[in-house]
């Protein structure tokens, strides 16, 4: 009888466990006792002056579900507890990684199983897809009247993406996290190289200002590989590594063979053709193929689907690294990893570098990007109270008080305000004098959707920003600094063919990588590919010709 009972209980348990797979449709916050494990509901801190303001009108405790990067590091600090108490909220974090982020977002939307705040790395070429979702009712409208949220309203004034990309029939369905870029940057991101300045000095090829031609850079790579200043072993030093998304696109765009290299460009007859069919693209492809075949680019970069490229650079095995090597990346990632692990002894040993275009050996190219990084949508199932609370939080984070909170933490605990209005940071410092932040990167958590924190800030390792002083001076003053423009009109165009095929990015990228890896006769291989692709892109180009003047 006992066995029968055990079998019965087991069978029932197994059947019930299926319920775990069922979609939850609950939209109201669960009682505290049922709160998920990751929720942060710590009481108020007793950290000196850092008492949160009394919750004004926030009588109802709300649990907000949001997807974040680094979920395990998010929401665990005293600062987070202070924030949660201020807004009387707790969080249910859904983890995403760089590798699965977009895939998860697409799956959640398709299954109507989105978190309250759906946050993603939405690019301009996702516009058509986003609009399909918005039209089908996936998201709450961000209220047109932003009187209650003046800081957000002020950002809307300065953004283009809110109207160009995120509005449907005049209604805003997503909030872009504004980049707050200075005007001279022309909304470029930093697809550029970082390198081991100490190794360049060791082989006697360092140039003041970290500016090189490609011939100089290639000679320097060979010298480093032969002389092995990093003591990696004979022939074991890698020339160039990169982030996985940089091969081949970013290698090509930094070369500066063409000004406008957005998906489709106009030919001499004024007709749209895909950029990959132009001679400029072919020249870029040949250049990168040669770099790879001659051993300048790490051979395994082709099969790297994670962060091995970057990790090799951080671990002192590679001389150069290509990625979004922005000041904040230097400050928040490269220096932290390399100085803290003893790979470099001084922050002076690693630096960003300018490599001039091989076309003229004097121009330097970056690429314009959207005026935001990441978009947050409020899911359709969110009620008015939660929507208002979220907007209240974002508005506060977009204020100067919120900015200080993000970059410096809590007054009294993390910093003190001096009589002259400057801040004294109370954190521990590294031997080089830089601060050791007790907080995870502010660019990957629940604070990010409101707005990106302007840099440089008061607390980060200033070394990262200092390394850019010369380069940014060059960008601000030199006529040889150029930016590949972003074609807003083209890339937000929602034509049927364009939405379906775009600029065949996946096909082009796969073929380009295949050629780069195989080497041989680039022209012959590329001609064969263009012949195969021509019937595919012509209907798209015809649609663009008919609709975009």
């Amino acid at each position, binding site marked *: 009888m006992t066995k029968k009972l055990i079998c019965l209980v087991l069978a029932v348990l197994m059947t019930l466990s299926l319920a775990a797979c069922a979609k939850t449709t609950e939209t109201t916050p669960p009682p505290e006792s049922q709160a998920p494990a990751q929720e942060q509901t710590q009481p108020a801190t007793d950290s000196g002056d850092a008492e949160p303001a009394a919750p004004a009108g926030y009588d109802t405790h709300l649990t907000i579900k949001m997807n974040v990067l680094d979920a395990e590091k998010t929401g665990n600090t005293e600062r987070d507890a202070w924030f949660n108490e201020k807004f009387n909220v707790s969080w249910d974090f859904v983890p995403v990684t760089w590798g699965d982020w977009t895939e998860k977002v697409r799956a959640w939307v*398709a299954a*109507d199983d989105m978190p309250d705040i759906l946050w993603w790395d939405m690019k301009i070429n996702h516009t058509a*897809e986003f609009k399909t979702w918005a039209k089908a*009712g996936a998201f709450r409208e961000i209220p047109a009247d932003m009187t209650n949220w003046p800081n957000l309203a002020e950002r809307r004034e300065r953004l283009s993406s809110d109207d160009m990309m995120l509005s449907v029939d005049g209604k805003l369905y997503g909030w872009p996290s504004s980049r707050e870029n200075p005007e001279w940057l022309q909304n470029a991101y930093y697809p550029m190289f970082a390198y081991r300045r100490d190794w360049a000095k060791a082989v006697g090829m360092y140039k003041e200002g970290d500016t090189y031609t490609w011939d100089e850079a290639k000679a320097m790579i060979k010298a480093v590989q032969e002389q092995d200043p990093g003591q990696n072993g004979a022939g074991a030093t*890698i020339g160039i590594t990169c982030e996985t998304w940089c091969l081949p696109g970013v290698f090509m765009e930094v070369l500066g063979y063409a000004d406008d290299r957005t998906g489709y460009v106009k030919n001499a007859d004024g007709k749209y053709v895909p950029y990959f069919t132009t001679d400029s693209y072919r020249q870029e492809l040949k250049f990168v193929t040669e770099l790879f075949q001659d051993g300048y680019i790490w051979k395994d970069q082709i*099969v790297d689907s994670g962060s091995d490229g970057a990790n090799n650079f951080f671990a002192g095995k590679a001389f150069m690294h290509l990625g979004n090597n922005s000041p904040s990346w230097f400050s928040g990632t490269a220096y932290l990893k390399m100085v803290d692990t003893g790979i470099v002894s001084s922050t002076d040993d690693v630096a960003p570098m300018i490599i001039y275009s091989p076309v003229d050996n004097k121009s330097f190219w970056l690429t314009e990007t959207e005026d935001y990084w990441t978009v947050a949508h409020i899911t359709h199932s969110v009620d008015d109270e939660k929507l208002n609370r979220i907007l209240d939080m974002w508005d506060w984070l977009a204020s100067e008080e919120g900015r200080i909170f993000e970059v410096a933490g809590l007054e009294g605990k993390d910093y003190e305000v001096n009589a002259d209005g400057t801040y004294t940071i109370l954190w521990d410092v590294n031997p080089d004098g830089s601060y050791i932040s007790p907080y995870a990167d502010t660019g990957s958590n629940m604070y990010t959707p409101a707005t990106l924190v302007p840099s440089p800030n008061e607390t980060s390792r200033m070394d990262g920003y200092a390394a850019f002083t010369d380069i940014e001076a060059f960008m601000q003053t030199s006529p040889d600094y150029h930016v590949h423009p972003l074609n807003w009109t083209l890339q937000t165009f929602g034509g049927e063919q364009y939405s379906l095929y775009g600029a065949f990015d996946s096909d082009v990228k796969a*073929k380009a990588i*295949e050629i780069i890896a195989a080497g041989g006769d680039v022209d012959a291989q590329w001609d064969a590919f263009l012949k195969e692709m021509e019937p595919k892109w012509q209907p798209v180009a015809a649609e663009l010709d008919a609709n975009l003047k």
Partner: protein
Amino acid sequence: MFMSPTLNQSHDYVDLRTRKGWKLLGKKIWQYKWIYLLMLLPGIAVTFVFKYMTMPGILLSWKTFVPTFGDKSLFGYLASSPWVGWAHFSRLFKESAFWTATANTLIISLLKLIFGFPFPILLAIMINEMIFKKYKRVLQTVYTFPHFLSWVVLAGMAINLLGDTGVIKRFAMLFDPTVKDSWNVLYNTRYFRTLLILTDMWKEGGWGTILYLAAIAGIDPALNEAATIDGANRFQRIVHVTFPQISDLIVIMFILSVGNMMNANFDQIFNLYSAPVYKVADVIDTYVYRLTFQSTTVMDFGFSTAVGLFKNVINFALILGANWASKATGGDGIM
């Protein structure tokens, strides 16, 4: 719990080495049939929910997927998605990448069938013939262990071993320094399928032996004894006793393998392949995945459903064909 060779069950003694034991086992199963039926429930529920309730989704092959929001009905997305006729199939048949993926799927599966299918059978027979029982158990464990590693881990190991900075290249450079610049095992179209077959055999070969070893253990020892008395040597006993005794199982496994031919192991290929080897390694499943989730344009479940449906139609035809071939050659089929 009744599958062990001997079992003390209250006062009954079930000896599966005798006909009486099997009868007793049958009686016991019948006696407690409701428990077994109950334990089937989760499996039935899973199959029903994930295999049958999702079937209406096949209609998306003729629709453009438009998600619904706030709609509690199960198939609301079908109503919201407009019909597009045969547009997806028409596009599909024009895509050269689809035909490449179809051909790759069949070629890779066929290679796995030729080399991978007999491997666990041979391994099981070899293990069975081993004299030292303890060593036999150790070997079984060693061979089976890779099955429990995910392809993510194994792909990482493969890259570390075979990559540009891997151990094998460094070892090869000791003998031939010229491989330094030409080494590209992981994205060479000439080697990639071999890499797939070998890693698959390494990972799953040991696990596959379990079924065959169980079947071999069930062979009546009298048959081997009689063959020995008749003068059969070890190899002859394998050929004339062991192999015929497990041939029914081999046929069933073969038919199931053929029926699974259009599934060329997504996990393995997805974790090991890269753009340079798409033309020899991109199979239908990886193609669908890239179309659905990694496309830079609008995600269209309709198109990927059409690809999946086409794949399953071929799969169904293959399993019917294998079943027919098995019966036509005097063997047993599965239906």
